[in-house]
């Protein structure tokens, strides 16, 4: 409860004041300031307290409560600073017989703090807490119930069920509010007790009926947590979780939205953002209802509302992220502020609508709050820069803003630059570049360079960049050189202007490795245009040992070679020096490159020319640092930390903390529990191929090894190590006997490929028409996610993958290509050996019925966990069969 706990009982360096030391002295918390007494003896003091408390416990005299208050305060003040006052536990409990609510609260605080570490003692408190749970005063009932649930002692849970049950039915909303959260606390102490008592059902009832909005909100929070955690093991729970997203529940909550506190509104809005409306009328209704939430002073409410708006419009158009260009029609007759007379709603309209409220949030409130909002604005600007191109002045930096804010703004300015505003933006950036704040100046120069690479008004920008070089500030020169290099790679036509200026820079003034490397690259690339390039390179090569960066030395080798090929007589000396130094370089890459050049030159100079100095194609686009998949994922996690960190939540959060409705099947960083013993055994198993049908898992395990019986069974290329063969030689015969009689049937039952998890179809005639998939199925990631959230799991089973498959699965991409051959398309993949995760989808050839697959492959156990969701439940089995067959044939071709 309070700060003190074991770790605080020992002195810690975080409190350098020297006053708040636990064992020896206290801090100036209360009137009885122990600090003032250098010989403060906590033991004596505590036993003194114990005595006094005991005296007061039985007293009914006037003013007892006041003296108790003083004593309790002293106890809690000791507790806060870390003195162990657990020895007065029983006295505190005895004194708790009071009607004074301040005393009671202090007592609860004390008990809540020590119960966890003194489970035996806490039994003492159960009695009085239970008694208080039946008090007349609802405040005391609530407080007692909260304290009871906060004890967090597992063997006391039986005492919780009764009070919680009556708390949920209490006539007072404060008590129900506490009880709803209490259920969640109980769930975390003992989930089975909570489930056995059927509390979630009660919570659901309360959520849908309670007149008090905070009770409703607490029930919602508790249910979200409980169902999400339960959903991993129970289908019922995942159904319940989906019920929270059903239309009746969503509408019920939305209709009460203004009753909720601003914080509870955030929770409701987050839930609503996951709701998928069935038609555009619904979208309008919801957006009109929530429109005024955008004018809320609380930034969290505004962002939550913005998320709803973005998600709602997203669900209607798959071109949302492509910005303007597509309209979708809304037929209803609504009088909403978002609607223009033609009843069109455009994603652009949504952006236009949310822009002003977000900008207001950025400029009001504390710097911290405005940073949080600005991060989200940043995300939107990066997604649809064109929509913000007239707002660029809002992204100008103020001199007193923290660097983390300025950095975001610079990126936004870079993004929104276009033909009409580039001149002004670059002018502004140049002001920052002259700034005395060095990190800021560097970022600004980089921003100018990025804008230049975006192809707007390159002419003017090149001039500005070259002016930077004349500023003669080392860091400015360094940043600019790097940029000029990138610029030349994209616009070689500017080489003449640039080289004239770059040629004047003394390499002695350039120290930063990246800048030096850039300069050297230009010396090599434009050796013909720079008069003294060979001599500059020569002096650099001669001072080889002074160059500490391997990157620079690598560039130097290449530049010297290029220069040599163009101006051999002048560069010969430099080349000799560089190759000699390079060959004896301790750095592997430098050494290898020197050796390579040396041999190349020895072999044939013309070949060296072709290798080192081929005509170059200008770079058209520099690769984006973040994949669009990652960006979409961050966008999907709007209004969360993912936006601030600029990475999806799976990169910084463990699975159980990703929020109740996070797209929980995240990729990468997968932790698929401890391997079961069975998995370890089966890890040695060699899976057979398609034709190895109808064997049970255990039979298959036996059936590996060489097979030369001429049966339908054809072994995969096996591990031929001798002991393995020997140990299986005998059992193999047995298993083959079992296999043979069934082999003919196998070929007909193509649908039922591995025979895993579902019954063998005995009569081929009864099998349904074969499932055919659409070779050119398309599904965008957002639709996938929405479907994935909506649909129940229709099949969940274990599959397997052949060792050849495992061998081929060095990267997820290998499997993607393979599955594509079976018309099963991948929408997302990730992970590292041994755990890979894939999301696939497929569509029926005849109709637009979609199958969604989550497939987790453990390459060390050759197992695959497969979860299938399908629009058409009926055909999901057929699809599973198809999927399994495709999976098991992976690596066989």
């Amino acid at each position, binding site marked *: 409860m309070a700060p003190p706990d074991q770790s605080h009982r020992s002195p810690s360096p975080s409190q350098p004041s020297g006053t708040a030391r636990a064992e020896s002295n206290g801090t100036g918390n209360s009137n009885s300031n122990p600090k003032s007494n250098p010989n403060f003896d906590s033991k004596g003091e505590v036993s003194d307290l114990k005595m006094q408390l005991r005296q007061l416990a039985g007293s009914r005299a006037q003013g007892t409560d006041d003296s108790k208050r003083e004593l309790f305060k002293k106890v809690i003040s000791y507790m806060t600073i870390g003195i162990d006052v657990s020895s007065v536990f029983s006295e505190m409990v005895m004194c708790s017989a009071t009607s004074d609510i301040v005393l009671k609260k202090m007592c609860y605080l004390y008990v809540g703090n020590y119960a966890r570490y003194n489970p035996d003692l806490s039994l003492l408190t159960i009695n009085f807490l239970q008694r208080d749970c039946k008090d007349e005063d609802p405040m005391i009932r609530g407080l007692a119930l909260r304290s009871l649930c906060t004890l967090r002692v597992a063997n006391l849970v039986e005492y919780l069920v009764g009070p919680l049950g009556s708390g949920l039915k209490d006539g007072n909303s404060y008590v129900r509010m506490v009880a709803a959260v209490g259920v969640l606390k109980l769930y975390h102490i003992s989930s089975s007790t909570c489930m056995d008592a059927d509390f979630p059902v009660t919570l659901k009832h309360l959520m849908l009926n309670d007149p008090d909005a905070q009770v409703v909100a607490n029930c919602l929070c508790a249910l979200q947590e409980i169902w999400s955690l339960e959903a991993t093991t129970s289908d019922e729970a995942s159904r319940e979780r989906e019920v929270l997203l059903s239309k009746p529940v969503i509408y019920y909550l939305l209709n009460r939205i203004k009753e909720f506190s601003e914080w509870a509104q955030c929770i409701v809005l987050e839930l609503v953002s996951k709701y998928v409306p069935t038609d555009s009328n619904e979208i309008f209704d919801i957006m009109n209802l929530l429109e005024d939430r955008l004018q809320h002073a609380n930034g*969290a409410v505004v*962002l939550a509302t913005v998320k709803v708006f973005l998600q709602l419009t997203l669900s209607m158009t798959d071109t949302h992220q492509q910005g303007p260009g597509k309209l979708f029609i809304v037929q209803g007759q609504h009088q909403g502020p978002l609607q223009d007379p033609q009843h069109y709603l455009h994603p652009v309209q949504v952006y236009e609508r949310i822009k002003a409220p977000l900008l207001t949030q950025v400029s009001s409130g504390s710097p911290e709050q405005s940073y949080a909002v600005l991060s989200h604005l940043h995300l939107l600007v990066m997604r649809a820069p064109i929509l913000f191109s007239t707002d660029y002045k809002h992204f100008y930096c103020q001199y007193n803003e923290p660097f983390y804010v300025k950095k975001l703004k610079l990126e936004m300015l870079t993004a929104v630059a276009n033909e009409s505003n580039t001149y002004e933006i670059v002018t502004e950036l140049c002001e920052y570049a002259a700034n005395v704040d060095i990190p800021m100046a560097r970022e600004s120069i980089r921003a100018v360079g990025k804008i230049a690479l975006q192809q707007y008004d390159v002419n003017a920008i090149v001039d500005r960049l070259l002016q930077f070089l004349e500023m003669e500030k080392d860091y400015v020169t360094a940043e600019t050189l790097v940029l000029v290099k990138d610029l030349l790679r994209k616009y070689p036509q500017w080489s003449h202007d640039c080289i004239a200026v770059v040629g004047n820079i003394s390499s002695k003034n350039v120290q930063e490795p990246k800048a030096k490397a850039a300069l050297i690259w230009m010396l090599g690339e434009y050796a013909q245009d720079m008069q003294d390039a060979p001599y500059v390179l020569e002096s650099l090569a001669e001072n080889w040992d002074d160059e500490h960066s391997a990157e620079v030395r690598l560039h130097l080798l290449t530049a010297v070679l290029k220069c040599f090929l163009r101006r051999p007589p002048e560069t010969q000396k430099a080349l000799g020096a560089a190759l000699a130094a390079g060959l004896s370089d301790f750095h592997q890459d430098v050494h290898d490159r020197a050796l390579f050049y040396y041999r190349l030159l020895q072999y044939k100079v013309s070949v060296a020319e072709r290798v080192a100095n081929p005509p170059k194609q200008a770079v058209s686009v520099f690769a984006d640092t973040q994949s669009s998949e990652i960006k979409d994922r961050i966008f999907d996690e709007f209004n969360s930390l993912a936006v601030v960190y600029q990475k999806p939540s799976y990169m910084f959060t463990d699975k159980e903390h990703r929020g109740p409705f996070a797209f929980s099947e995240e990729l990468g960083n997968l932790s698929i529990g401890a391997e079961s013993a069975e998995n370890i055994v089966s890890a040695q198993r060699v899976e057979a191929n398609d034709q190895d049908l109808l064997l049970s898992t255990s039979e298959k395990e036996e059936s590996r090894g060489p097979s030369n019986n001429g049966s339908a069974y054809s072994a995969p290329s096996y591990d031929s190590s001798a002991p393995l063969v020997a140990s299986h030689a005998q059992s193999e015969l047995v298993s083959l006997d079992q296999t043979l009689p069934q082999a003919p049937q196998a070929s007909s039952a193509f649908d039922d490929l591995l025979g895993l998890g579902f019954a063998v179809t005995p009569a081929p005639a009864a099998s349904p028409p074969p499932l055919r998939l659409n070779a050119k199925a398309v599904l965008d990631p957002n639709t996938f996610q929405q479907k994935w959230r909506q649909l129940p799991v229709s099949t969940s089973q274990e599959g397997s993958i052949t060792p050849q498959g495992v061998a081929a699965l060095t990267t997820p991409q290998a499997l993607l290509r393979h599955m594509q051959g079976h018309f099963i398309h991948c929408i997302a993949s990730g992970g590292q050996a041994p755990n890979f995760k894939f999301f696939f989808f497929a569509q029926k050839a005849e109709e637009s019925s979609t199958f969604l697959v989550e497939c987790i492959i453990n390459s060390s156990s050759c197992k695959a966990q497969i979860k299938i969701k399908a629009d058409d439940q009926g055909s999901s089995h057929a699809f599973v069969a198809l999927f399994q067959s495709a999976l098991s044939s992976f690596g066989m071709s």
Partner: protein
Amino acid sequence: MISQFFVLSQRGDNIVFRDYRGDVQKGSAEIFFRKVKFWREDGEEEAPPVFNVDGVNYFHVKVVGLLFVATTRANVSPSLVLELLQRIARVIKDYLGVLNEDSFRKNFVLVYELLDEVIDFGYVQTTSTEVLKSSVFNEPIMVDAARLPPLGPASIFMQGTKRMPGTAVTKSVVANEPGGRKREEIFVDIIEKISLTFSSSGYILTSEIDGTIQMKSFLTGNPEIRLALNEELSIGRSGRSIYGSRDYSGSSGSGPVILDDCNFHESVHLDSFDVDRTLTLVGDIGKRRLMLMKGPVLMGFCKLDASSAILNQVPPDGEFPVMNYRMTQEFKPPFRINTLIEEAGALKAEVILKIRAEFSPSVTANTIVVQMPLPAYTTRVSFELEPGAVGQMTDFKESNKRLEWGLKKAIFLHKYFQIVGGSDHTLRAKLTFSQESHGNITKEAGPVSMTFTIPMYNTSRLQVKYLQIAKKSKTYNPYRWVRYVTQANSYVARI
């Protein structure tokens, strides 16, 4: 949901520490403080308000030198947590009157009591001072006002380095005054922050006003309050005319006040706003009823029944922003800054800074500081103030090569560099360099930035025309204070 909440002093001491969920390790306060103190990442020297260490997310806001921190392992909404931290600080201030380490330490039991009601198991329950009053029972122990730094006329607006300053009031919303009864009074502050950039030739490049109407109510019984603003007030500038080339009419001029955008506190009722620009702050019973009657209702599964209109919130008590607004309509800047740099030989130059106050002489600006970075090779600066200058201070900060011109250092003298409207002030600074400047001084120095506070002056011309409080009885006549103040946020002149 959050896992822990704690408040650290500037030295990193735990002042309060509350663990709500027990899923973050106990040493988190220490990890946090070390990380913030020695922040070095991406060339930044200041820790952002949100960061992640080993899977734990740390959120913090700085309030009057104290660090309010929350931790969680969950991927929560950052603006929710940061807003919450700010709100907790405000609630505590409402209760304690003064927010500082001392008042915290004296009232830690009360603070714990508040924290218990504000958050349960990581979920926010309420941050309304009024609601909390019904469930919080400790009486605040007031810190000795004499031990507080003296409240000069301007220092009241100097809390916090940027943006929203606290109101002048440092009394608790709940505690009774020594005299016994509470004084019925209400404060409405119109606080405007100006951001403005002059180009080197004196043109206004960008300008923005970020304003707040902040209210702090000490009225008992939460009566309905009506607040009327300028009738000629329009919101939302149509289309793209932002920063358009309109002639500005100046702050003394007339014409409509055009806000780009604004937002309102939850309790503000805007029914008549469109008609007569009146904001009504209503109790929740009224709000609920109105809500039942109007507004689009989703026709889904549930019908609202009348019983759900029971109040669970009450109108706000304590300090809160009634309305935040943002304006880019051009305005007359309160100060003009002229900078002249003259080279006087190879190793010498003279900087002449001239400031002109463009507002009426009846208004006085104070706490003025003008700063200007000088070339890095500046070794010595000698200053020359205008004849008869009083209370001015000049300094050359050797460490960051910065020129400072402003208020007296000795705070206790209460003598600030004040500027009366309409007046001019000039500073001459002679610079000595250690190397030749190559005629490049303007690229190595500046821009000039300025901070100031102008009480009883507002740039946007947004006004509270009247403040009406529903009468409880004929004799009920609470004190009403309406105050204006304009502050510089980022006031910069390029050279």
